[in-house]
């Protein structure tokens, strides 16, 4: 039992940390956020060169063969810089689905391109009505000739605007919210009948609503088995949740550090506000919330390949904790920064907005607590 990282993991983490420190300051981030695509292809290319895009992929496709721990380390550092580039969408979600369910041909074609930075992907899973239910799908894929015809609409697709391919969850059988009958299909975004409307979110990313209007794809487009998409979704969302939690942890660490620093320098009533005991005790609370979140993240990562049979409960718990700690930490960060905390100019609010967006992605704390309760106490 140990919580140390391997030398290789340490190097990976340092590489990301150094880059964020040296090349991704808040002004850089601000100008990327203002760009039409909400990301920088130049930075993305550097990510590829530094090997970060290869982390989770098998060595046979040119990957680093990394574990969830490696993903966690990268995401935590990216969080510290509130990096806008679509690591989650392209590498963790899109790449993760290919790695888990893609055919040999799909993998051989696309994974090397992800790694070299020349292929952007997205996972289109949300619909207008679905809220936090991943299985609530009305988009249909009907068998037609030697393939499928897709109809429906997906919303808030991360990286949808920049994606070359999108993996779409569609219903091939079953009722609206059934976990059976979901099929994942790989669709080039330039296919006939694909219409994207893109817009920007509060955290700077550009997302899309994507309408599929009689879109035709060949049978080889299926990722995994027909009607067997839900297991794949569940697996990749588990890793993605850990990735998001790690990103959130990086953000929380930054918020705590910046707030602590501010209270040491900001003077009111003749003294640094950090000398007020009531504020000190609240900063102890945010410190504890950070440490507790880190512990649960570590627990989830260990549970993934450990002997535990309780990964689902652990992921729900983690999402609850990230939500609570995040709200507490960004709330105190804004409050203790006073007037400055509510300006767009200061980075604090931008860290907060990214945390808020993380909280609502793949289900918020309340949703996951209800799921946790169902899993642990029902029946």
């Amino acid at each position: 039992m140990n919580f140390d990282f391997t030398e290789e993991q340490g190097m990976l983490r340092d590489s990301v940390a150094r880059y964020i420190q040296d090349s991704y300051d808040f002004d850089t981030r601000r100008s990327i956020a203002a760009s039409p695509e909400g990301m920088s292809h130049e930075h993305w290319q550097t990510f590829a060169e530094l090997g970060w895009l290869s982390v989770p992929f098998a060595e046979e496709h040119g990957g680093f063969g990394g574990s969830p721990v490696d993903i966690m380390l990268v995401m935590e550092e990216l969080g510290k810089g509130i990096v806008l580039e679509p690591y989650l969408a392209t590498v963790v979600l899109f790449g993760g689905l290919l790695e888990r369910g893609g055919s040999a041909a799909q993998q051989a074609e696309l994974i090397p391109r992800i790694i070299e930075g020349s292929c952007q992907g997205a996972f289109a899973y949300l619909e207008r009505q679905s809220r936090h239910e991943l299985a609530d799908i009305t988009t249909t894929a009907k068998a037609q000739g030697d393939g499928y015809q897709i109809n429906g609409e997906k919303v808030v697709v991360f990286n949808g605007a920049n994606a070359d391919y999108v993996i779409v969850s569609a219903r091939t059988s079953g009722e609206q919210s059934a976990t059976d009958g979901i099929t994942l299909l790989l669709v080039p975004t330039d296919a006939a009948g694909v219409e994207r409307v893109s817009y920007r979110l509060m955290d700077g990313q550009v997302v899309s609503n994507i309408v599929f209007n009689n879109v035709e794809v060949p049978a080889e487009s299926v990722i995994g088995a027909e009607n067997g998409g839900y297991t794949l979704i569940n697996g990749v969302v588990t890793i993605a949740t850990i990735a998001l939690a790690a990103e959130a942890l990086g953000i929380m660490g930054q918020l705590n550090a910046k707030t602590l620093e501010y209270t040491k320098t900001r003077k009111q009533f003749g003294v640094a506000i950090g000398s007020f005991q009531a504020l000190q005790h609240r900063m102890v609370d945010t410190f504890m919330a950070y440490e507790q979140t880190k512990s649960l993240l570590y627990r989830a990562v260990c549970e993934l390949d450990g002997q535990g049979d309780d990964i689902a409960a652990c992921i729900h718990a983690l999402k609850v904790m990230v939500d609570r700690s995040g709200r507490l930490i960004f709330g105190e960060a804004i409050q203790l920064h006073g007037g400055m905390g509510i300006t767009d100019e200061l980075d604090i609010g931008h860290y907060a907005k990214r945390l808020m967006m993380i909280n609502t992605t793949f289900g918020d704390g309340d949703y996951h607590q209800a799921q946790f309760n169902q899993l642990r106490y029902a029946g």
Partner: protein
Amino acid sequence: MDTKFAPEDLAFREEVRAFFDEAYDEELQSRFKDLTTFKDAVIEWQKRLYKKGWIAPGWPKEYGGTGWNATQKFIYETERSAAGVRDVIPFGLNMVGPVIYSFGTEEQKERFLPRILSSDDWWCQGYSETGAGSDLASLKTRAVREGDEYVVSGAKIWTSYAQYADWIFCLVRTNSEGKKQDGISFLLIDMHSPGIKVNPIVSIDNHHSLNEVEFNDVRVPVANLIGEQDKGWTYAKALLAHERTAIAGVPDSKRSLTEIRSFAAREVNGGKSLLSDPLFQKRLSDIEIELMALEFTELRVLASVASGGAPGAESSLLKIKGTEMQQAVQELRMDLAAYYQGVLPNELSAEQLGHEFGSQARQTYMYGRASTIYGGSNEVQKNIIAKAVLGL
């Protein structure tokens, strides 16, 4: 102990409802939402209230107030909020107006009060400074007397709607000796004076309502000084307790909660409405129960004011609890929007997007973080209670 309404109160309530129903029309409401028409719409609405004679419920009748008793004021405010009618911009009517009629000269009263009532002048507030924060009295903007004028230099910050304002009321330092609360003066300054520069501040909700106001040797006639030089803190303080009481905003929070209930009834997850979800219900009732109490706490404070008391440290309780509840309501509304909270305003129409209120819910939530900071941060309010009520 009695909270029954008399028949004349019920009649008054009908009159208020009827007026709002007619005067606060949809065309007007739509103009509030658009930044290009916002200012004119505010002025027009306030002029309608002025015409009705209801623009200044808090003012003494002799200066243009309504002469309402506490019950009528309560009814008016409750109905205003229930009807979703926006409150007046407070800087002229609720802030500088009372200072002028309480401490101003006859000439100042004649000159300023009518134009405040008619909304012909738009006022803003020049209290906060970068270095001062909740320690308001440590302000540094300086006014030096030269003959019949003060020469003002420095800067004020967090000034709401300074970009629209004709006048600003300012606390300025006229004397640096002695306690920091001494040596502060209360000045009325024409925003069109040479040397004033308004720098917009975009806030966390991506909105521009706040500003920095720079004063570069701005010349202000001595006639614009309220009361005595160096005694401005006294006048400002009288105002602060009133401001805190108003900040509680219980009726607006109640109204927002009602709206949330109807949204939650329509928002579905896994085939069930959020309103039927016990954990969501708990969050709702955690707030609703506190608000039911706070409404009576406010009534108790108002009743004690009506019977001759002044809102003292209890107003700090209203400020703390009121803003906590506002934020809780805002948070609940935002959570209801799930990922749609992320959408920026004006990016897509509700139709294209598939959602109505997410963007606005987030903006309200984010800007709402300021309510526990401004008007004296909630931490400062707790210090006030600890000292004034608990004797610590």
